[in-house]
């Protein structure tokens, strides 16, 4: 697991108050929404806000495929890496 992926998992847990699970319980490749972690659109908004705030990124619904960025932790990490220049994986 890359540092960035771990960071994002912690961010998800912290933002959404997922107290009962730890970063190790989230599979980087598993879907975040509906199946998998079972997050919903309200969570997506909160998470989106947190990602924007933490990494200073902007989601542009016209340009970006926001839905696929949020599909999994791995996709989010790649999006953040592309936006900030951090390494997505090692």
């Amino acid at each position, binding site marked *: 697991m890359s540092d960035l992926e771990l960071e994002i998992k912690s961010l998800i847990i912290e933002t*959404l*108050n*997922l107290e009962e699970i730890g970063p190790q319980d989230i599979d980087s490749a598993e879907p975040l929404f509906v199946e998998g972690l079972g997050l*919903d659109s*309200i*969570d*997506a*908004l*909160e*998470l*989106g*806000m947190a*990602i*924007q*705030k933490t990494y200073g990124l*902007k*989601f*542009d*619904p016209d340009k970006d495929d*926001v839905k696929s960025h949020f599909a999994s932790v791995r996709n989010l990490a790649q999006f953040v890496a592309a936006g900030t220049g951090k390494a997505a994986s090692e």
Partner: protein
Amino acid sequence: MTFSPCAVIPSRNHYLGIELLVARLRAEGLPIIIVDDASSEPARSTLAQLDNEDDQISVIRNDVNRGKGGAVLRGIEAAVDRGFSHIVQIDADGQHDLEAVPALVDLARHNPDAVVSGVPVYRDGQAIGRRLARWLTHVWIWVETLSFQIRDAMCGFRVYPASAVLEVARDEPLGRWMDFDPEILVRLFWRGVPIAPLPVNVKYIEGNPSNFALIRDNWRITRMHFRLVFTMLARLPTILRNRPRRIRQTDDHWSEFEERGLYLGLRILAWIYQLLGKRICLAIMAPVVLYFYVSGGAQRRASEAYLRRIGQARGNPFRRLRLSSFKHFFHFAALSLDKFAAWTGDVSGETIVFEDLAAIDRLTERGEGVLALCSHQGNVELSRAMSRALHAGLVVNILVHTKHAARFNRLIQKFNPEAGVNVVQVTEVGPDTALDLKQRIERGEWVVIAADRTAIASAGHYSMAEFLGAPAPFPHGPFIIANLLKCPVYLLFCIREGARYRLYFEPFADQVRLARSNRINDLKALTRRFAQRLEHYCLLAPLQWGNFYDFWAVPSNEPENAKG
């Protein structure tokens, strides 16, 4: 419909430049009928000499002056006798730009059932008196046709379907003088003839005498407008049934024109409002309200259904539901008028009474951002404007989910450039909108959002909550935003009380928290509580309800504009 056009030129003592006019029309291939309306010399001989059967130019003479309308009608009759179907009407004084003739004829060819009506564009500007007279005419015509489709009724540069005009002339007492041009257009419109507007350049030619008799013709025109307004009211059902289709101009500058017209119309209304006061404005608006009442079947039914529920909820039904419903429409118009006051910033402290001002003061002192939930009960515009007036320097962000937002914003800006109001259009709140709003709240700004209407985009994001005795859909959106913003939530109602407004500002929640495990129930509870408060204010002032659609219907994918 066949299309064989013929030009008709009525002339009374206009002969300067007429050869040029005739030559130009012939070059366009148009046969010509000139009607000499009892002109004296030298016009008479000059016109008579133009008669040339080989070149399809004929000159008819009225020995007695029968007015412009009389002359045009005579020309049309002659044209129909000769088998023509359409009449290109042009003034003889050369004020119309002949460059527009091909476009005029072309538009008529594509819309053979319509009147193509020139809309003058004045290059050299116009005297203020004339401009004012034109605007007055516009206002009359809007009322008479209950529509903005006729953009100019005075311009005598047109193409008519001949038979339609002769039918009107046969059935109606038409003005035969300068009142002919506007009257025939209105009456054709009433019969369902569409109006196709076309911009034309206009200039005044020196040397030709004006046949406009200032007092006599103005009196005729005024009398004609009164007659038309009363006829309109008497024949309203027929006129509404015959409403013609709208012919759209693809040309871009028309939308700009429309926008400008709208703004000017509002300006004039605001000006009349200040000059005459509210009572007279309402009297002027009465026929318009009547029109909306008569023509708006769905809105009327929605209004009656709502009032019936109010009657049940308060245990005291409206005895005459139809009359109450008309009053409901009228209140809506009155509230709209008050919007002008709100937009122009013309709201003095005396017209507003605050309920619990201390609570607001405490908030503004702390500089804390607030999410205010408003609704379409009472004067929503005024409550928006007032929330700004509460505290100098307070920035209020209004979330709306229609595309009218941009236009509304422009209007506010134009009326009152200092208004610290941002209108933010949101069809769907994404992460960046949410973050932006959160930053605004952190800066101590207010965010205002209506919590009574469900948006199309939010299909599924609503709960049914008990409202006036039956479950109605209430949107989740405002409470989801509240959950994101994590700031105090207040309710904002602005209810009219006689000549004044009372602003109610009540705390709703210190913070909205949607627990993950219990989210849907939390949302249900919040919408239920909001519905209860909304019901309270509806019972307080039943006729100030601004939702003229079936409020209790489960949302489908209906277009937003179906909502009143």
